[in-house]
């Protein structure tokens, strides 16, 4: 026949598909369906009332209209991006610094690295409560330190002030994110052969040049995945914000996920809650596409 595959390899392909079938079915049922269903309900007038009565009307884009005409939505979008970008920047820089530090194979490096991971292993709710105490203006340790170093004159009202609350959350999340960045980057660093550095030194490259012309390009893959994974994890933050501030004061720290939760489970506008969740999804989908593109380009070169 005109097929470009031999019979044997066609059988192999069939077998291959059979092997991935269970995983595929699982993904479609457990992940694909909820996503599609979420899109579906975002076009219906789904509220506790309408669902209880058994007639949720199709209302087209009205849910999207409603959420985008709510100033809280814009605040949530702004907060989510602001929070994500600053968390990533700080986590990445500090995490990278630690990774470089621990790549200097000194004796205690392994143990210290292990210790650092503790903050990554703590449940987010615990982190949230802990930072609520630490950021307190009355007896919080962070304000104590800042005061004693004479960096601030009066205690900062971290979580109580509309302008600083998002920074309080960024501090908490950065603390959690550092070990994650450090671990992935130091795995990357371990794979850079030492002789490249040696020959660079012989050629007279200084440490800054070595960093930018050898280290960074050699671990580009790790950097990329750390940034993308970090972005995804940070962008969909829920527990930390919910526990620490509940989105307050007023709506100063509302992010997309808490706003969606509030719409769905506090005021029972399921349709609007789904619409917010879809906006969140689309933002991340774009990031994922960019990632694919970058990875793809790399492969070709």
């Amino acid at each position: 026949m005109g097929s470009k595959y031999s019979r044997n390899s066609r059988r192999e392909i069939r077998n291959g598909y059979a092997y991935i079938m269970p995983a595929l079915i699982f993904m479609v049922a457990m992940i694909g369906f909820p996503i599609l269903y979420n899109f579906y309900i975002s076009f219906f007038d789904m509220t506790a009332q309408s669902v209880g009565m058994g007639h949720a009307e199709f209302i087209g884009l009205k849910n999207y209209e409603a959420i985008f005409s709510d100033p809280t939505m814009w605040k949530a979008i702004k907060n989510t991006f602001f929070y994500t970008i600053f968390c990533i920047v700080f986590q990445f820089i500090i995490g990278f610094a630690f990774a470089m530090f621990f790549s200097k194979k000194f004796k205690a490096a392994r143990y210290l690295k292990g210790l650092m991971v503790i903050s990554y292993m703590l449940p987010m709710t615990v982190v949230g409560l802990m930072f609520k105490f630490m950021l307190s203006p009355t007896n919080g340790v962070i304000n104590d330190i800042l005061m004693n170093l004479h960096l601030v004159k009066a205690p900062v009202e971290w979580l109580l002030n509309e302008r600083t609350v998002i920074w309080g959350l960024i501090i908490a999340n950065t603390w959690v994110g550092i070990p994650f960045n450090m671990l992935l980057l130091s795995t990357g660093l371990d794979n850079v052969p030492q002789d490249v550095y040696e020959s660079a030194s012989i050629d007279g490259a200084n440490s800054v040049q070595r960093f930018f012309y050898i280290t960074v390009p050699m671990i580009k893959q790790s950097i990329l995945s750390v940034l993308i994974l970090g972005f995804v994890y940070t962008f969909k933050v829920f527990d930390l914000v919910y526990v620490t501030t509940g989105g307050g004061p007023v709506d100063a720290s509302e992010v997309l996920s808490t706003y969606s939760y509030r719409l769905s489970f506090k005021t029972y506008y399921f349709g609007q809650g789904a619409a917010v969740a879809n906006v969140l999804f689309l933002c991340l989908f774009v990031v994922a596409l960019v990632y694919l593109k970058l990875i793809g380009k790399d492969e070709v070169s």
Partner: protein
Amino acid sequence: MKKRFLAMALTGIMTAGLLAGCGSSGDTQADTAKDAKDEKTADTGKDSDGGGKTEVVLWHSMVSPEVEPFQEMIDNFNAQSEKATVVTEWVARDEQTKQLTIGNMAGELPDMVFVDNPEVINYGEMGVFQDIKKQFDGWDENQFLDSITNSCVYEGKMYGVPYIGNNLALFYDKDMLAAAGVEAPTTWDELVDAAQKTTKDGVYGLGFSAIKNAECTFQFMPFLWSAEGDWTDMGSDDSIKAMTYYSDFVKNGLANKEVLNWSQADVCKQFASGNCAMMVNGSWNVGTLRNDAPDKNWGVVPIPQDKVPASCLGGEALCITKNADADACFEFIEYLCGKEISAPYAKSVAKFSPRSDVDIDKEFADDPEMKVFAEQMENTKPRGPYPKWTEVDNVIIEACQSALTEAKTPEQACKDAAAAIADIEESLKK
């Protein structure tokens, strides 16, 4: 190629994992509801024990030490009733509202459920509960405090019977007030005076909860009502006066600004450890303080008043769901909320009967602190009753928080709240 596929799969999982989080939470809810139902049907195999008693399923979220007297009461009822057998199912309190909403969609509801009073009308108008006005009016022991029964009544329909209540009062540190040379306050001016005199050396005069959830509204309402303002008229001078009075405690440094992040339990801890001289808090803290701070010398007075005495109703109502056997269920309500059981049962779980015929002097002769709360029950008002209370609740929380953070003036906060509540009212008419 392999790497590329892997990357694609990974990205897929990453993006998908996110929404799976949102979507599947609903699914698992429905699943657990279904599981509960399965167990239930397994139970109902022995439906007709004895002379054809109807089995009614009751959802509750009681935990120790409340659950023991509760179970005893259920057993007593089952032993003496000829019509009904009550079977209890435990549902976590935080889960209950979600379970009811989802159960309603999936058509899997219990026969009866205890519901937090501001939610009764919400679910009633959603069609989850039956209108039991007829049964209630026909009951010869229906002597309840009107303000409290009102929490279950909307446009002439009654969606539940209040079975237990609590309210807010002012706790004060006797030693601190004595040291400052002030009596326990009874009016707004006296409260400010006492707070000013006790605010010093890291101690704040007053503590209350303004955290971003229902506790904030719960604690603000007594001030609002005492000035004769109301949530239906947030733009009025009286409401603005209440908001100003309330937010001035933080503005003038008489209350810690951290009230914005304090739950009522946090407030109680602050009071117990001597960080505030007075606190607004509920009756359930009486037991907490007695256990956790046995050496502390404290007392309770009604919340100081402006024009009228007012407190906010906490507590639950017993509601019958849409497809349940109303007569069998109401027999249980008559038992639990009746003259004989209601008051002693409420006392056994450290709460108060909503009935108007309770002999408070006799019942609380040995407990002066709890007696204050019991006496206040008649000045206690429910939030709402309103089908979209949760939305109004959000509006009031935002108003309180923006006044406390000084993001808005109290006047502006109230005016904005009035406008937002008018919008909610508008959406209800549609």
